[in-house]
C-alpha cells in the first residue's frame, strides 16, 4: 500500500497551501513550485519562494507530485502523484445517500477546499485524468462547476472522472454541462437495479431512482460521457439481466458500463456477510448482463474482479482497475501467469470472507 499522506515539518501558514515538488535544479514554473535542495537520509529539503521546508519518508520519487499542507499539522496530503494514473480529490464527505456498501461513509461537516483543489489540478502532469470523489461532489455543485471551468481555462488538457449519484442536477445546469469538454470529463454514476424500490433500498434513500433517471436524462441531453457503475451484491444479484435490458433501452449513450465487485471497507465491511456476492462460484447473472450489453453494442467491463474469479470467456471484460496505492496480490498470485493483466485485490480484502474459488492461471 502506498501512503497518500506524508510527514512534513510544519510550515508557518494559516491557509492550506498547495505546492508542487520539483527535482533539484529544475526551474520554478509557477509560484507553487518547490525545488529540491538537499537530501539527507529520508529527509528532503525543498525551497519555495525563498522559504524552505522538509518532507520525510517517501521512498519513491516525489518529482512533480502536488502536496497540500494544512496549517498546524505535520502531515501533508499527496493530492497528485505524478507517476500514477490513480489520483483522486475527495472534495466533500457529505452525502445524501447511505448506500449499504459505501466505502467512504459520509460525514456531517464540509471543509471547502475547492480553490486548493483547482490549483492542484492545474499543476498536474500533461494530460492527467483526475478523479473527483466524495461524499457527493454535486452537493456543492456551484463550487464544483466553477472549479471545472477554472481548470479548463488554465489547463484544457487535464480531465476529470467525477463520481456522483446524479441526484442534484436540474435543467438549470444544462448550459453548464454542455459547456464542459465531453472528451475530458467522464461522469461515473451508480445504478444498482432497474427496479426502483431495489435501487432505493440499496442507496438508502426513497425516490433516489426517480431522481437518478432525471439526472441521467440531463447528462444524455448535455452530450456528457457516462460511466455507469453497478456494484454487484446479494441485494441486486437477481436484477442484473433486467438491468442490462434497461441500460440498453435507456442508456445506450453511455461510454462504458462498469459492473463492479465490492470494496471491503466502510459500510461494505460492516455489511459484508449480507452483501458480498461470491462471483467466483456463481457468475451466471453477470454473464447474462454482459451477453445482453455486448450484443446491444454497449461496452461492458468488470471492475475489481481478480481474473481467476472470472470464467475464461469473460476474462477479456475484466481490466486491471484497482488503484495502485490500494492494490495487493495474494501468496498464490506469485505462480500466476496472469499477474501482469490482473488487478488483484483491495488492500483490505480478507481471504477467509472472500472468494471461495481462486487460484493461479
Amino acid at each position, binding site marked *: 500500500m502506498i501512503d497518500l499522506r506524508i510527514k512534513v515539518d510544519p510550515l508557518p501558514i494559516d491557509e492550506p497551501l498547495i505546492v508542487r515538488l520539483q527535482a533539484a535544479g529544475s526551474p520554478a514554473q509557477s509560484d507553487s513550485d518547490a525545488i529540491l535542495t538537499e537530501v539527507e537520509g529520508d529527509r528532503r529539503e525543498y525551497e519555495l519562494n525563498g522559504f524552505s521546508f522538509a518532507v520525510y519518508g517517501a521512498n519513491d520519487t516525489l518529482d512533480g507530485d502536488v502536496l497540500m499542507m494544512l496549517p498546524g499539522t505535520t502531515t501533508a496530503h499527496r493530492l497528485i502523484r505524478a507517476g500514477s494514473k490513480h489520483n483522486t480529490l475527495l472534495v466533500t464527505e457529505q452525502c445524501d445517500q447511505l448506500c449499504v456498501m459505501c466505502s467512504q461513509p459520509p460525514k456531517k461537516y464540509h471543509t471547502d477546499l475547492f480553490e486548493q483543489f483547482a490549483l492542484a489540478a492545474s499543476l498536474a502532469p500533461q494530460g492527467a485524468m483526475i478523479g473527483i470523489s466524495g461524499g457527493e461532489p454535486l452537493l456543492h455543485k456551484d463550487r464544483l462547476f466553477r472549479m471545472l471551468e477554472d481548470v479548463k481555462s488554465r489547463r484544457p488538457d487535464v480531465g476529470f472522472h467525477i463520481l456522483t449519484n446524479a441526484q442534484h442536477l436540474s435543467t438549470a445546469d444544462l448550459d453548464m454541462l454542455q459547456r464542459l469538454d465531453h472528451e475530458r470529463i467522464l461522469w461515473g454514476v451508480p445504478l444498482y437495479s*432497474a427496479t426502483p424500490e431495489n435501487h432505493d433500498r440499496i442507496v438508502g434513500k426513497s425516490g433516489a431512482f426517480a431522481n437518478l*433517471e*432525471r439526472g*441521467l*436524462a440531463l447528462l*444524455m*441531453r448535455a452530450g456528457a460521457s457516462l460511466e455507469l457503475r453497478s456494484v454487484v451484491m446479494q441485494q441486486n444479484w437477481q436484477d442484473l*439481466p*433486467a438491468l*442490462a*435490458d*434497461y441500460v440498453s*433501452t*435507456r*442508456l*445506450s*449513450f453511455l461510454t462504458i458500463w462498469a459492473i463492479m465487485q465490492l470494496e471491503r471497507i466502510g459500510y461494505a465491511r460492516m455489511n459484508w456477510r449480507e452483501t458480498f456476492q461470491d462471483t467466483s462460484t456463481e457468475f451466471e447473472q453477470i*454473464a*447474462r448482463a*454482459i*451477453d*445482453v450489453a*455486448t*450484443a*446491444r*453494442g*454497449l461496452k461492458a467491463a468488470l471492475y475489481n474482479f481478480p481474473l481467476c474469479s472470472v470464467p475464461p*470467456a*469473460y476474462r477479456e471484460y475484466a481490466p486491471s482497475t484497482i488503484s495502485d496505492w490500494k492494490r495487493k496480490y495474494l501468496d498464490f498470485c506469485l505462480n500466476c501467469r496472469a499477474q501482469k493483466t490482473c488487478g488483484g485485490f483491495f488492500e483490505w480484502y480478507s481471504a477467509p470472507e472472500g472468494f471461495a474459488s481462486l487460484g493461479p492461471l
Partner: protein
Amino acid sequence: MPVVPLKFRPHTDELLIFADDAGGYFKSDHAFLHRYACGQLTSSDRAFLTANGHAYNSVGDLAFSGFEHRFAERLYLPRELDYVILVPTLRCNLACGYCQVSRVNETTPGFDWNDVTLEAVIKFLDSLSAKKIKVEFQGGEPLLRLDIITKVRDFCRQRFEACEIVICTNLQEVDAPAWDLLAEPDIFVSTSLDGNRITHQKQRTVTDRGTDRFFANLEFAVSHLGPEKISALPTLDPHRAPTPHEVIDTYLSYGIRSIYLRPVNHQGFARKKFDARTSAAAWNAYHASFIDALIEHNWSSEVAVEEYYFVHCLRRVLRSGHNGHVDLRNPNIVGLSYLVIDYDGKIYPTDEARMVTRVGQFDLSMGDVSTGVSPETIDSLNVEALNNFHPDCVHCPYQAFCGVDLVDDISRYGRIDLPKHLTDFCQRHMSIFDRIFAMIYSDDPKIQKTLALWSGAPRFDPLLAKVHR
C-alpha cells in the same frame, strides 16, 4: 402512457414481429395486435412495452430520451470527406464476364490518368480537411500503374496524420516491386476469389495457367503479408455457384474467415451476359443455404466463419449506431464522406454511379477533379435517400435496420419510384431480415452459437428474443 408507433409483419409461426422506429423489437400475437390497434392495452401490455423501451411517461423522461438516442444513432450523418476511391487506369490483364463495363484491354491507349490528372488528384487530396485518409485503388487493374500508386502513397504519408491504402487487385501479375509495396504496413490487399477453383477459372482466369498463377499469388500473399492484410470477395451467379461448403473450405484454406458474398452485378454491359434482373429469388435461396452451411460449420469447427454482410445486418438489428458500411445506410447520403475519381478525372459519388454513367443510362457524375465538385444532380438524389417516410418502408418493421440504394434502383429500373417490394434491394433485404429474425427466435443450439459469434457476445441471451403474450 404514450406508446411509440409499432410496425409489424407476420412471422414463421402464428406470431408477428413488431418493431419501432428506433429498432426496438419483440414478438407477439394477433390478440396483442388487436389490443394495440384498438387502444385496449392491458396493464401487462403496458408493463412490457415500458420495459422494452416502446413507451414513456412524459416527453423528456429517461425512457423517451433513451428512445430518441437510439433513433438518432440509427441515422447516418456523413462525416467529412476522408475516403477516396481512385481509378488510375481502366486497363486490365483479365477480361471477366461480369466486369466488361469497368475495364478495357491491357494495351488500349487513352484509359489512364495522365500527368495533369495525377497532379489534379494530388491537389484535390491536399485540399481535404480530414486528418486521416483512406485511399482505395480500383481499376481496371491498378497494379498496372504502380508508379501512380507510389506517388499518391508518398503524398498521403507526408500530408496526413495517418493513411490506409487498399489496393483492389486481381493478383494476376504481381512483380517484385509490387510485392514490396503490398508488404508495407499501411497497404492492404483486396482481391476476388470466386468461390472455388473451377468457378474462379470460368468467371475470371479462363486458362489453367492463369488460374495457377492467381492461386500461387494468393498463397504467397497470405503467407508473406498475413491473412489479416488480405480481404477477398466471391462474386457469384446463384444459378452456377459452387456449393457453400466448397466456398467456405476454399476461403478457410487461405485463412480468410470473413466472406462477403456478392451477386454478379446487374449493371452495365454485364446485364447482357447474365440475367440478373429477376435473380433476387435465386440469390436469396443461395444466400440462405450459405447461412445454413455457416451455422453447421461454426457448430463443429474451432474456427468461426462469417458472411460479412449478413453479420452487418444482424448487428444493425441488435444495435444503433452501426452505420460503418457504405452499402446499407439510412439516409444513404452519397457524395460527401467518400468519392470516386475515375480514369479520366471525373468524380462520382459511388462506384455504381460510375457504371451507370458509363453505360449511358444517366449522368451521375459530380464534376471533374480539375474543375471541382458540382453536386447538383447528386444533391437532388440525396433528398430522396431516406427510408423513414417512404410510403412502403414506413409500414415495414425492418425500416430502422434497412437502408436505401437509389443508384441501384436507377441502374436496374431507370427510376427511383418503383414500389419498394418490387425492387431487388427490398427483396434481398426483406429476405435477410426475415432470416435474421428466424434465427433470433430459434432455440436450436447451433443457431444460438452462431448468433453469439456473430453478435460478438459470449452467448446469445434470451432477453434478445422477447415474446410478449
